[in-house]
C-alpha cells in the first residue's frame, strides 16, 4: 500500500530541510573569511549574499514545523533526498556570481558535483578563479563526502522523535561505532580531521619544496587532501593533478584516495589497533582483487598504446587512474582528450569498469561497490555448489563482513537489485549522451563517471554541452549518491501526494 505524506509530515520535512540549509549558510562563512583574508572583496560580497539568502531560505522553511513534529523513517528518506538537491541549489548562489560559470545551471551542476563528491566541472577559466571560490568548491566535497546528515548531526541540529537514526540510515550509512549516531558522526569527523591534517601537511611541504609560496602550498595541500580523502576530484587548476608534475604528490594522493574508499567500520578497527579485519573482510578482498586486475589491464592497455617506453611510466599512470576511478575520486594526470584519442582499447575499458565497480560501502566512494560484487561472486559460487550437490543436501554459504554472516537469498537479491539499477542508469545516461550526438564510448564513459560519482571525463562535460545533458548528469550524480532507493522514496511520495490531491478534486 502506498501511503501519502500528511500535512504534518510535510511540515516536519520542510523544518528539517530548512535546518540543513541553514547549516550550509554557516559553512559559507569559511570562504567569506578566506576572501577577507586574501583581500578578494568581490568574492567576499558573493559569499555575504550567498550566506544571507541561504540563511533566510533555511530559517523560512524551518518555521513550517508543527509543534512536536515527529520524524518517521519515510520522512527521513525524503529529507535526505531533498537535502542533496536543496543544498546544491543554495550552494550554487555564490559560484553563479563569480563570473566563472556560463549560467546558474552550470553553477548548480558544479555544486551538485561537489556535494555528491563527483568532481565533474563546468567552471571556466579555473586558473584565474579566486581563492575564496576555490575554497567553497572544495568545501562542498568535505561537507558532502562526510555526509550532509552527518555534518548536520555533528552540530546537533536537534532532531526530535528519535529521527536522527532514521536520517543517518537514509543517507546510506550503517556504521555503529559509538553508542548513538551523534557520537558516531562526531567520531567520523574526528578521524577525518586526522587524515586531513596529515594530508595537508604532507602535500603542503611537497608544494613548498617545489617552490610554491607558503600559504598557497598549504591551501593547495588542504584542497587536494579533501578532494582525495572525500573522493571528490576537484582541483584548483585546470590541469588538475597534472599541474603539480610531482611523483610525491601522486603517491600521497593515492594513499588518501585509498583511505577515502575504505569502509568507515574498517577505519574504526584500524583506529582501535585491530587491522586484521581488513585481511578477512569480503569487501576489502573484493576491492583488492578488483584494483589488481584492473591495474594490470590498464597497464597492458597503456603499454599497447606504445606512447611509453618503460613499465615505470605505465605503472605510474595505470595505478593512479585505476585508484582514482575505483575510489570515485576522478583526479587525473592525463588530459581528457587522451582517453579517447590516445588510450582507447583495453586501458579505456578497464577504467570504465573501475569507475562502474566503485569502492566500499559506508565510504565516500560511489559505484556498485566492492561488497555487492563480492556478495554476487559468493552467490554464484553458492548456486554452483547447490546445483552439483545431492538433492537432499542443504548447502549454506557464509561471508565475512565485520562478522561471519550467512549469505541469504534476501541479501543476494538486494545486492543484485542495486547492481541492476546502476547498470540501467549507466546505459540510460549513455543512450541520452549518444542521442545528443556524442560517440557511444565517450557517452558511456561520462555516464558511468556521473552515476558512480567519479569525475573522470573524456571532455563531454564542458560548459558548451547541451542543457538537457547537464540536467541528465546532475540527476545521475544525485541518484548515484543516494543509491537510488532514497530517491525512489521521494518520487513515490510526490506521486502519491499528487494522486491524493487529484482524488479530492
Amino acid at each position, binding site marked *: 500500500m502506498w501511503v501519502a505524506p500528511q500535512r504534518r509530515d510535510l511540515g516536519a520535512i520542510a523544518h528539517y530541510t530548512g535546518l540543513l540549509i*541553514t547549516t550550509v*549558510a554557516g559553512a559559507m562563512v569559511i570562504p567569506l573569511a578566506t576572501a577577507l583574508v586574501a583581500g*578578494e*572583496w*568581490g568574492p*567576499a*560580497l*558573493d559569499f*555575504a*549574499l*550567498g*550566506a*544571507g*539568502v*541561504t*540563511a*533566510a531560505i*533555511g*530559517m*523560512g522553511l*524551518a*518555521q513550517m514545523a508543527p*509543534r*512536536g513534529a515527529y520524524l518517521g523513517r519515510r520522512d527521513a528518506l525524503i529529507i535526505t533526498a531533498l537535502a542533496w538537491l536543496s543544498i546544491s541549489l543554495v550552494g550554487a548562489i555564490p559560484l553563479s*556570481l563569480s563570473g566563472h560559470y556560463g549560467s546558474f545551471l552550470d553553477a548548480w551542476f558544479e555544486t551538485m558535483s561537489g556535494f555528491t563528491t563527483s568532481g565533474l566541472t563546468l567552471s571556466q*577559466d579555473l*586558473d*584565474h578563479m*579566486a*581563492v575564496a571560490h576555490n575554497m567553497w568548491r572544495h568545501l562542498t566535497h568535505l561537507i558532502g563526502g562526510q555526509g550532509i546528515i552527518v555534518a548536520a548531526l555533528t552540530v546537533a541540529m536537534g532532531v526530535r522523535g528519535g529521527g536522527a537514526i532514521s536520517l543517518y540510515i537514509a543517507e546510506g550509512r550503517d556504521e555503529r561505532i559509538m553508542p548513538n549516531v551523534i557520537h558516531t558522526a562526531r567520531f567520523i569527523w574526528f578521524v577525518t580531521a586526522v587524515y586531513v591534517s596529515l594530508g595537508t601537511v604532507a602535500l603542503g611541504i611537497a608544494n613548498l*619544496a*617545489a*617552490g*610554491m*609560496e607558503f600559504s*598557497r602550498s598549504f591551501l593547495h595541500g588542504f584542497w587536494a587532501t579533501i578532494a582525495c580523502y572525500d573522493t571528490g576530484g576537484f582541483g584548483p*587548476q*585546470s*590541469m588538475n593533478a*597534472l*599541474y*603539480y*608534475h610531482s*611523483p610525491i604528490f*601522486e603517491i600521497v594522493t593515492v594513499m588518501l584516495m585509498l583511505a577515502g574508499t575504505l569502509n568507515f567500520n574498517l577505519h574504526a578497527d584500524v583506529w582501535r589497533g585491530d587491522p586484521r579485519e581488513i585481511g578477512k573482510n569480503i569487501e576489502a578482498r573484493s576491492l583488492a582483487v578488483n584494483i589488481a586486475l584492473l591495474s594490470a589491464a590498464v597497464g597492458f592497455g*597503456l603499454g599497447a*598504446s606504445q*606512447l*611509453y617506453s618503460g613499465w*615505470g*611510466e605505465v605503472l*605510474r*599512470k595505470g595505478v593512479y587512474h585505476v585508484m582514482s576511478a575505483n575510489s570515485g575520486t576522478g583526479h587525473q*594526470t*592525463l*588530459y581528457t*582528450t*587522451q582517453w579517447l*584519442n*590516445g588510450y582507447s582499447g583495453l586501458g579505456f575499458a578497464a577504467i570504465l569498469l573501475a569507475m562502474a565497480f566503485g569502492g566500499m560501502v559506508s565510504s565516500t566512494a560511489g559505484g556498485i561497490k566492492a561488497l555487492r560484487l563480492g556478495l554476487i561472486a559468493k552467490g554464484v559460487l553458492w548456486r554452483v555448489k547447490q546445483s552439483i550437490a545431492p538433492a537432499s543436501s542443504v548447502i549454506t554459504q557464509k561471508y565475512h563482513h565485520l562478522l561471519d554472516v550467512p549469505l541469504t537469498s534476501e541479501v543476494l537479491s538486494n545486492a543484485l537489485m542495486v547492481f541492476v539499477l546502476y547498470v540501467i542508469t549507466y546505459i540510460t545516461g549513455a543512450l541520452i549522451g549518444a542521442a545528443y550526438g556524442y560517440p557511444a564510448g565517450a557517452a558511456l564513459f561520462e555516464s558511468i563517471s556521473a552515476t558512480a560519482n567519479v569525475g573522470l571525463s573524456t571532455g563531454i562535460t564542458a560548459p558548451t554541452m547541451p542543457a538537457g545533458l547537464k540536467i541528465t548528469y546532475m540527476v545521475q550524480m544525485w541518484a548515484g549518491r543516494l543509491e537510488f532507493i532514497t530517491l525512489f522514496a521521494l518520487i513515490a511520495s510526490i506521486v502519491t501526494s499528487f494522486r491524493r490531491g487529484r482524488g479530492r478534486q
Partner: protein
Amino acid sequence: MRRYGAIAVLALALALSPVSAFAAGTSAAGAVPAETDGPEIISMTSGLDGATIAFEGEVVSEALAGGDGHVWVNVLSDGTAIGVWMPVEMTDDLEVFGDWGNTGDVVRVVGILNEGCDQHGGDLDVHAVSLELVKRGSERENPYDLWKLGVGLAGLVLAGVGYRRMRRSEEGDLL
C-alpha cells in the same frame, strides 16, 4: 664548370623543397617549429609527438621545481594549460604569473612536444628550446557590487527574525 653549376642549382632546389622543410621540422635542434595551440597539442591527433612546436599563451600561477636546474611553467593557450619544462634561466624575463588578481605574461614557447614523456612519468609536456616574452602581464580589474552586501544583510535579518520566532515558539511549548 657547367657540372659545378648544375650541382649548385640542385643543392639550392633541395634546400628550398618541402621535403627538406619537413625533415628539418622533425629534428629537435634548429628545427622549423610547427605553429599550434593548446587544444591541438592535447588532441593526440596532431601528429606532432616528438616534433618541435611553437605556441603562445599566458603563464599562470607560478614556476614549480622541475629538477636538473629546470622548472615547470604552465602556459595557458586558448583555454588549455600546457606544462612546459625549461631551464631556470629561461624564466628570467617572466615577472607576472596569471591568477585571480593578475593576467600573466604572454609568451611564445618553442619546444619539443612529448605526448607521453619518458623523462616525466608519461606526462604530456613540452620541453622548451626557447621562450620569448610577447606581452607583459597586468593587474586584472575585479569590480565588486555593494548591492550584494545589502541583499546578504537583508537575508541575515530575515533569518534572525525567523530564528527568534522559532525559539519563542519552542519556549512557549516548554511553558
